[in-house]
């Protein structure tokens, strides 16, 4: 049984409320942090080896240390709660159940960065979570945990929740900042980076919900202690959103380094493939990371077991590996049509492209059209090649990583399942309708 740092108290009745949260030791870490220097806090986070939990995996402490601190210019910490990556639902789960952990993390982080007002940008669709957060913030203000002179420390800190209105692109940090400024969510060109010119042209750090929450146990236990958990440079615990054709979908906090096989099949986690079916493929880190077939997700190319860690999942590069990403773990059983699953992803990226960069605006649309054509049984082999070419001209060629996110699933599906595309092209008459049509059924258990 792995250690639980974030979800330890998640099932304590009433943990949503401030009183219960405090009974469980909540805000004690904030108190500790307020007694430290801001540099010391940053140092602990650096030592912890915490890597951004939103998907990119950039070391959080390093990101914090890059923040510009010009005289007289306010700076901000912004929490990216625009969780929209298909397959990922950990942040919603956490904010809904233990909102004060985020608030405590925001206060510690803001104190460390010298920010006096910070924002949580939550996606608009999660409006009910917005209310939960707002209520928690109101409680915290009343208790003097937010506002002027918090916990008598002399530090003034205001925290606000800001809601979006439906745009995956706003999960990209500069698009998020644009959106927070009341604009269209078009990513900005970089440089300048947000650490220099972010929200309202002020130095800004944008961190994922889970990263900010993780700061609380890091400060509580110390960076070094935290770094002992996990494996190699994948320190600490990670929240994995598990979904798809498994017996126990849900959010699991794992110590980084758990073998993938154990994660899928053990009862502690996913509980195996539902209906006794065989595993076909996994998208391990949210829809944008490469899909891997069963043999490659369970084992490295050299036959060693693949682990749930940043390094192990990306072992082999894109030829045989994938990425930990946001931890959105989508499992597909033997009946799944990779092509159709890909089509839903591509339709998603086409729908979510902001429209700024021509390769993405036009390319995502053409990828969707070509996939649709293939699914309809009208595709040709050259369409598959064209699909490959389009994705290669989007990847790394756009202002923001949405281009990469749209390209990688296509590339990996063709790389590992080219035969399936060819089957659609060569034998359209063989396409069985229910091969890629799932009925609504009642076999998935109620969410724990």
């Amino acid at each position: 049984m792995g250690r639980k740092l974030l979800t330890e108290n998640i099932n304590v009745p009433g943990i949503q409320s401030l009183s219960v949260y405090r009974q469980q030791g909540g805000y004690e870490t904030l108190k500790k942090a307020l007694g430290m220097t801001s540099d010391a806090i940053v140092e602990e986070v650096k030592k912890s080896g915490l890597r951004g939990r939103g998907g990119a995996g950039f070391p959080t402490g390093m990101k914090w240390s890059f923040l510009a601190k010009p005289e007289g210019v306010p700076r901000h910490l912004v929490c990216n709660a625009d969780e929209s990556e298909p397959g990922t639902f950990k942040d919603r789960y956490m904010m809904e159940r233990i909102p004060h952990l985020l608030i405590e993390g925001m206060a510690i982080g803001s104190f460390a960065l010298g920010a006096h007002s910070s924002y949580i940008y939550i996606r608009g669709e999660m409006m009910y979570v917005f209310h939960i957060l707002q209520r928690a913030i109101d409680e915290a203000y009343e208790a003097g945990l937010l506002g002027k002179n918090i916990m008598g420390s002399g530090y003034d800190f205001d925290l606000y929740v800001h809601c979006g209105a439906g745009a995956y692109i706003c999960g990209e940090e500069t698009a998020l900042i644009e959106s927070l400024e009341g604009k269209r969510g078009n990513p900005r060109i970089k440089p300048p980076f947000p650490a220099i010119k972010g929200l309202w042209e002020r130095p800004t750090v944008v961190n994922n919900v889970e990263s900010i929450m993780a700061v609380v146990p890091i400060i509580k236990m110390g960076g070094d202690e935290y770094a002992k958990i996990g494996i190699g440079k994948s320190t600490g615990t990670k929240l994995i959103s598990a979904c798809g054709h498994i017996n126990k979908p849900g959010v699991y906090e794992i110590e980084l380094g758990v073998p993938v096989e154990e994660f899928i099949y053990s009862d502690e986690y996913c509980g195996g493939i539902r209906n006794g079916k065989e595993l076909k493929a996994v998208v391990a880190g949210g829809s944008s990371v490469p899909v891997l077939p069963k043999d490659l997700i369970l084992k490295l190319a050299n036959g060693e077991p693949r682990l749930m860690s940043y390094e192990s999942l990306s072992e082999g590069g894109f030829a045989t590996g994938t990425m930990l990403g946001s931890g959105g773990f989508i499992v597909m059983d033997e009946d799944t049509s990779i092509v159709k699953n890909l089509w839903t992803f591509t339709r998603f990226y086409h729908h979510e492209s902001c429209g700024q960069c021509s390769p993405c605006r036009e390319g995502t649309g053409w990828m969707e059209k070509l996939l649709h054509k293939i699914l309809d049984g009208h595709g040709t082999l050259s369409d598959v090649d064209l699909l490959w070419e389009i994705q290669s001209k989007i990847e790394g060629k756009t202002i923001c990583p949405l281009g990469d996110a749209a390209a990688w699933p296509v590339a990996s599906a063709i790389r590992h399942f080219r035969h399936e595309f060819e089957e659609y092209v060569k034998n359209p008459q063989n396409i069985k309708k229910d091969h890629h049509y799932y009925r609504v059924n009642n076999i998935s258990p109620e969410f724990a």
Partner: protein
Amino acid sequence: MSADKEIKFSDDAYALVQKIIKRYPEGKQKSALIPVLHVAQAEFNGWLSAPVMDYVASLLNITSIEVYEVASFYTMFNLKPVGKCVIEVCRTGPCWLMGAEDLVKYLEKKLDIKEGQTTADGMFTLKTAECLASCGTAPMMQIGEKYHENLTLNKVDQILDECRATVIEPISHWSKKEIKA
């Protein structure tokens, strides 16, 4: 909404808007645009007409086009009238794996409309949505603020009946709640 009716927030909504504006530094009131548009959509029958957007622009002291370019970017803002209940079925990969496609077909048949349409009685608008971060509880749909998860066809029937039976609050009734708070 009749054309000549003056577009103006209720006192409560106006107070909420002022509260929202205060969340941002002075002179950065444009930041309040998206939250205020949510309030406006809730106040004015679930969609944003041109006069409503002009009104929001005047409240925030920005130009109308700044409102329009934003409203048309985000999927949650309706720029055309919608039914009293807007049903949004998540259709992306993980939900598709769990039968989202079937769910949409079922709703289309049951409501006798196609995706994107509104029932003749103005009760339901059926839409599909991209990933709503509810993949572990798929299939799912959102109605107003509420997530309906782990759906079965029986559950869907029940939900639709409930929708019909309850006095329908404006679609994004969340803001009303917020006003009361």
